[in-house]
């Protein structure tokens, strides 16, 4: 098993390098010159040259790349073109908001979705199962902003929770206060991940439930509860952990739309602003951060799948 994990880590590392190359080269094919954009049409040639030298843009691409990558991993992502502030500072101001939303979503959304999905798999074809499948199918196929809009209608107009967007300091607040604070973005994101999570966890358990050893357990007179919790879940655990990690990775995508929708000052709105102002240094840094998170979650998903496989844990 260890060689497998090492191999997977190696692939992860190669992926990170490939990703950094894609992001770096992607921002390099910008038609406009970064210095030109920053300094405007009136800038003199000398000014632009000086600016380029300050950013290191006069160096060959491979040096720029190495400097950038080294900077990224040592916490120096350069200076924003749009606001002249260090990227790390911009991220520092906002990362808490995004981390809170993502963490709360995971803490609330994952257990509930898993419970719903596994429960549906216990009674396949039942009214509950079909209802849940219908809901999750519709949710998978709906854009995040529809879910968000419906929630706004329910919470803001229906229940009179006041402003759709409530953001302030989050320090010193309890769990429930925090939830109310972030209610709409979190609930929306919960629905976003729940749709996939319910479908996939249900499929994972159902897949195991159709195997001959479950039939054997039925024929041994094993009670239903024990069949589910001892015989089925043990084997579905790997796929389920895998599904959870994959869905947390989906959060990376979902969070962008949701933050923009609610005008929520997180990292995702920052990167969208970066794209609009063509602040390529910001895009490089933040894009790399998002992709790194995503790659790490995928890595965890795969390692979890290895770890829950009895064949790999107990080799011959």
């Amino acid at each position, binding site marked *: 098993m260890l060689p497998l994990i090492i191999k997977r880590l190696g692939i992860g590392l190669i992926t990170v390098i490939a990703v950094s190359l894609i992001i770096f080269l992607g921002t390099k094919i910008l038609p406009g010159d970064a210095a030109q954009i920053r300094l405007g049409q009136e800038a003199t040639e000398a000014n632009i040259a000086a600016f380029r030298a300050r950013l290191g843009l006069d160096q060959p691409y491979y040096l720029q790349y190495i400097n950038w990558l080294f900077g990224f991993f040592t916490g120096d992502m350069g200076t924003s073109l749009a606001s002249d502030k260090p990227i790390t500072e911009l991220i520092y101001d906002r990362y808490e908001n995004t981390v809170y939303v993502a963490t709360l979503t995971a803490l609330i959304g994952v257990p509930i979705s898993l419970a719903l999905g596994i429960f549906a798999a216990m009674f396949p074809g039942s009214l509950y199962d079909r209802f849940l499948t219908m809901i999750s199918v519709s949710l998978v196929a709906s854009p995040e902003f529809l879910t968000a809009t419906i929630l706004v209608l329910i919470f803001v107009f229906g229940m009179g929770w006041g402003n759709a967007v409530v953001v302030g300091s989050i320090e010193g607040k309890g769990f429930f206060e925090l939830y109310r604070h972030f209610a709409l973005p979190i609930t929306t994101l919960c629905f976003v991940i729940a749709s996939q999570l319910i479908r996939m966890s249900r499929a994972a358990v159902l897949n195991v439930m159709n*195997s*001959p*050893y479950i*039939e*054997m*357990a*039925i*024929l*041994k*007179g*094993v*009670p*239903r509860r*024990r069949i589910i919790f*001892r*015989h089925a879940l*043990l*084997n579905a655990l790997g796929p389920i952990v895998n599904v959870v990690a994959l869905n947390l990775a989906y959060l990376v995508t979902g969070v962008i739309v949701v933050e923009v929708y609610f005008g929520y000052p997180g990292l995702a709105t920052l990167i969208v602003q970066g794209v609009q102002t063509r602040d390529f240094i910001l895009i490089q840094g933040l894009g790399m951060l998002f992709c790194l998170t995503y790659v790490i979650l995928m890595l965890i998903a795969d390692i979890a799948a290895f770890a829950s496989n*009895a*064949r790999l844990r*107990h080799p*011959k």
Partner: protein
Amino acid sequence: MAKQTHKDEIIFEAKNLQISAIRDDGSELPIVKGVDFNVKRGEVVALIGESGSGKTTISLASLGYCKPGLKFAGGEALFKGQDVSKMTTDELRPIRGEKVAYLAQSAAATFNPSIRINEQVTEAPILHKTKTKEQADKKALELYHALELPDPENIGNRFPHQVSGGQLQRLMAAMALCGDPDLLVLDEPTTALDVTTQIEVLKAFKAVIKQQGAAAIYVTHDLAVVAQIADHIVVLYNGEVKEAGPTDVLINSPQHPYTKRLMEAIRPMPEAGLGEDVGDEHLRDVPVLEVNEIDAGYGKIVNGMPSSLILKDVNVSIKRGKTVGIIGESGCGKSTLARVFAGLLPPANGSIALDGEVLAPSLKQRSHEELRKIQFVYQMADTALNPRQRIGDILGRPLEFYHGLSGKKKTARVNDLLEMVELPSQFAQRYPHELSGGQKQRINLARALASDPEVVLCDEVTSALDTIVGANVIELLKRLRRDLGVSFVFISHDLSTVASFADEIVVLYAGRVAEQGPTDQVLSPPYHPYTRLLISSVPEPRVGWLEDMTETKEAVSGISGTVDIDAIGCPFFKRCPHAITGTCDTTAPPRQIDNNNHIIECHLDTKDLL
């Protein structure tokens, strides 16, 4: 026998039992159409029939269980007088696994891969509170000993993937017996096993059933196996009982035509000299296909040898119009040899010749004409036919490709081919999934014959088929060989099938030739010890054969031993009753050839092998 003491206690009785399948549109399709039989204490009742006869469905009914998509449609399934077909899951729970235990065909799929073996073996009695954990563990340990499992003290702590297939099959028996059931249901428990492993498992089952004094329902399609283990036989066809009676009566004087056909389908082991004679007019020709000193395998080539060597130093020559049978256990390299012939696996060393001329080792370098002359027939008819092509197109393509036929000529030839394999010409319009397994295998053969080949390579073509269907395919092959004068290479793990069909036999063991020669020579003494083991492992449809067989010294040493692929000396060393330590395990055995071209590779003198 335990049977005498409780003679009249009926453990299970099916009364006009009916089971239906529920189709997509909600209508019901009868699968079991009113079946009656009973099982008394101490008795083993065999349900025998082809796939589709409803035998597994009936056996599961004794546990009050129907597979998803099926339902009880009438009649009664009485376990000790209670109708289990009408009980709820909760009511059935104390019966299942405790009073009635089930053994499935594939132990590998039946054991939960994530739970240690012992927990699974002792689960039922502990859950049903008929045994404490200590009692159950003790019982399991006794069973491990009784079933002759290696390292019985520790085997329960392993995970299912850590033990071999034959061991797992026996562990499943332990799982079934741990709760001291009154009725055992065994669903083809030995079908997936090699002949030698099958004997070992059968022997263990029989002993344990007798010891426990339980009743058993044994489901199988193999009459020869049934003769060894059953007291009573129920013959099923299409969900109906065709004949039922005591084993000796049914085996010795079957009445119903269907039972007779089942009996005929069992090929008795031909005595020496019974290999079919096909006339010798071509004998002096050069061999059609020949391989010389072939080494072949997979993986990277290191020092001229592949890292995983499958075949070593194999010579086979196929004479025109003759059949060469290649036999051995699974993993012995017989399919690899077929792939070498076909050019799918270029050998690492050695040469191949077609009609006396050197043939390129790889498919890509062979000419159109060379490819035409060698045709391959696959084991699994299901995957060998493209599901998206009609039979007419499947058969028509080689005609077009090799002979340039088209239009009416092609259609006429396709019809000829269908007739040749005894199928109606309308089949040309059908798709493979509309055919049964035997019919698909016939199409598979017809496709090979479409190119007018000189050699047809048949890789286990009857192994996936039921006994009767397989026997019909063999009959067809014999007729085709007579009519067409084509040479066949017939690969099988079933010695009796090979023996009934081949002129020459090659016995492969761990990728090496153990014995080779004309069929009657190979099947008569002197034998290679491995050939002797194979011959004695072919089940005979006679009561008492199993006991006789397991007492032979080949069986004693050969059945439980393991194959040693990387052996320096003789690969059969660990399983050989005549093994000479110091010689057989260190030096490769010499090749001994007598004047009939009969080869035996053994350290022992042929006189000692008589």
